[in-house]
């Protein structure tokens, strides 16, 4: 057979055609998959979107507009590697500028050493010529490192000390360590400040927090606070009942009235939450950026005082942030704690709702005298800084932000939103997801037996019986 004939046998012609068809289909499918890879769609069907990034991280990733590379250092075969991969995939999915890779520090020690690798699970973030190492490959640590990369200057939050305030290093129930860590995860630097030692509030203070002082502040300290607010400072005061910390007149000057009362509450919602009568709840919030997303959510304020708000003061516009319920009432006087006489007395007690948290906006005074104008001309920039709107946020309770209550309901979000607003971190004012609630399972012995019988005996057994029945039926037909 000539070569030509051999080339054009039926087998070769049809076989070639078939192979070409297969190749064509394969090529089309590859293109479809490449397109799908380029324009991915993703649907997280889990409860509370537990397999997606939180709103805080997503807001942060919006600012990434140059390539961001994540290098995770994991030895091969380590169990956490898969979980880390899922987190990194979430980052890469949220922003196409993000790419990630894994490096085995044992196999590529030079790369690891160069990156400053310390222990397995480290992730190196590189962005715009800068680099930052995250300790762990979880969302919080990565977001924190990314925040540092995106914003080298961190804002500072000071907590006042020296008057028996709650400590930010205290890990016990009444301490503020949880709040401090949460603030750090939001990108703040958190530090303590003793006004008597320092004499003034440092110029880098974005927010000053007074967290439940047990003793009164000295007049010179209060003068410093006044000056701070006068220059557009941001102050968050959380005051316990029956302890004004010497701030009664100071607060009254801004329209916030402190009286010696305790808010009590007893209703179905607080009962369902397991809250006692001294733990008023807030379900209604003021119309403000801080609480904008707070619909149908509860915050708890254990041992809280009500706050009065005067709205007729010029230059100070106050509004309530959180209100107790209609069913709440107020007992006056410290004795109430000793007597434990909680019941509502219509003659003596005031009926709610009360302000549990308020925010006062302090407009800078518009001085138009000659001296000020001269100063303005001499140093216009300084004048501009001094003309900043000051804010004073007052909470009638400090316990709501302590370790014991911070992660309960929306308490932590209310605290973080308030600090973020005061520090002008607009993007971080939102509701954080509380995904890490464990769901422990305890089975009774009957449930264990029942499940054993159902899954290991009954279901496979039924299949076996059906098989035997089919076999017998078939044999009978033969």
């Amino acid at each position, binding site marked *: 057979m000539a070569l030509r004939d051999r080339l054009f046998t039926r087998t070769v012609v049809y076989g070639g055609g078939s192979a070409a068809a297969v190749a064509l*289909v394969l090529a089309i499918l590859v293109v479809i998959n490449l397109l*799908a890879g380029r324009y991915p769609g993703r*649907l997280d069907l889990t*409860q509370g979107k537990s397999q997606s990034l939180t709103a805080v991280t997503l807001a942060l990733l919006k600012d990434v507009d140059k390539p961001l590379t994540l290098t995770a250092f994991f030895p091969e075969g380590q169990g956490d590697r898969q979980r880390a991969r899922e987190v990194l995939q979430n980052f890469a999915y949220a922003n196409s500028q993000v790419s990630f890779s894994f490096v085995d520090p044992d196999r590529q020690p030079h790369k690891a050493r160069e990156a400053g690798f310390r222990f397995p699970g480290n992730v190196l973030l590189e962005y715009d010529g800068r680099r930052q190492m995250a300790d762990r490959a979880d969302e919080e640590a990565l977001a924190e490192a990314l925040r540092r990369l995106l914003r080298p200057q961190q804002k500072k939050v000071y907590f006042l000390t020296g008057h028996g305030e709650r400590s930010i290093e205290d890990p016990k129930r009444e301490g503020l360590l949880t709040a401090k860590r949460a603030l750090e995860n939001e990108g703040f630097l958190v530090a303590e400040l003793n006004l008597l030692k320092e004499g003034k509030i440092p110029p880098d203070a974005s927010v000053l927090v007074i967290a439940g002082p047990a003793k009164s502040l000295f007049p010179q300290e209060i003068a410093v606070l006044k000056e701070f607010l006068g220059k557009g400072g941001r102050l968050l005061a959380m005051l316990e009942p029956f302890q004004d910390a010497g701030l009664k007149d100071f607060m009254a000057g801004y329209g916030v009235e402190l009286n010696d009362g305790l808010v009590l509450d007893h209703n179905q919602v607080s009962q369902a939450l397991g809250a006692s009568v001294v733990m008023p709840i807030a379900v209604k919030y003021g119309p403000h950026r801080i609480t904008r997303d707070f619909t149908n959510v509860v915050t708890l304020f254990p041992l809280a005082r009500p706050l009065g708000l005067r709205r007729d003061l010029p230059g100070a516009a106050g509004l309530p942030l959180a209100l107790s319920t209609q069913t709440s009432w107020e007992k006056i006087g410290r004795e109430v704690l000793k007597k434990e006489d909680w019941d509502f007395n219509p003659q003596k007690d005031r009926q709610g709702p009360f302000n549990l948290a308020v925010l006062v906006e302090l407009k800078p005074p518009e001085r138009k005298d000659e001296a000020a104008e001269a100063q303005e001309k001499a140093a216009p920039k300084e004048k501009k800084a001094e003309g900043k709107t000051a804010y004073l946020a007052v909470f009638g309770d400090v316990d709501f932000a302590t370790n014991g209550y911070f992660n309960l309901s929306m308490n932590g979000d209310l605290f973080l939103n308030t600090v973020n607003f005061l520090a002008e971190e607009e993007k971080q004012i939102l509701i954080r997801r509380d995904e890490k609630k464990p769901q422990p399972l305890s089975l009774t012995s009957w449930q264990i037996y029942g499940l054993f019988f159902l899954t290991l005996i009954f*279901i*496979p057994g039924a299949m076996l019986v059906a098989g035997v029945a089919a*076999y017998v039926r078939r044999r009978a037909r033969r």
Partner: protein
Amino acid sequence: MSGIGAVVRKELTIYFATPIFYLVGFCFLLLGGYFFYANLLYYSLLSFQGAQNPQLAALLTPQQMVFRPLFGTLAIVFLFLVPLITMRLLAEEKRSGTAELLFTYPLTDGAIILGKFLAALLVYLLLLAITVIYPLSLAPITRLDWGALASGYLGLILLGGACLALGLFASSLTENQIIAAVLAFAFLLLFWLIGWQQELGAAGWGGLFAALSLLEHFENLARGVVDTRDVVFYLSFIYFFLFLTQRQLESRRWRA
């Protein structure tokens, strides 16, 4: 494409009359039941120890502790059983000579292939539907994440479809059922493990291998995330192997 229904009916009759379906079902449900029960006990044990451990807290949910590992195990169990479901489909027809008869019916090759594939898929879906008893039995005891469960089942359906399409192709290559089963198993294992190349650090090609891996695309669905890339991959995989099977059947007309 008329006649698909007839092929499906015929295949299902054979499945339910022969012991293979019941044997496969028994093994699948016994192993599935065992792993469900074992995961559940382990979860209950860890709940005692780990409720205070924040590292563990995120994992301590029925989805993470019971169903996600269960979906992974069911997928592996199924990998072993697919060759048994598909080995007969075309090989047996060729061996017993009924293939010639089948091909002379007024049916297109596509209809025959689709009918056989759908019949195998229905058998698989039936087995899968029985496993829904597991979450249903847990529902009165604890709160379940139904969205994630739905995603896991979607993953098992897509993965099952892909495995069955590959098994059907293997069955079209030979007239010996044993060879068909061995071929299907070998192909499946290859597509299952190909992603490991990436873990072993095959530079450059690792991504390609991972993209071809049946296992790699299952991970997202098992954890409750439906990604269009995974769905497109499985559908392409199914289509490609059904297309290959069709070409393989057609080749009888021109092969010397």
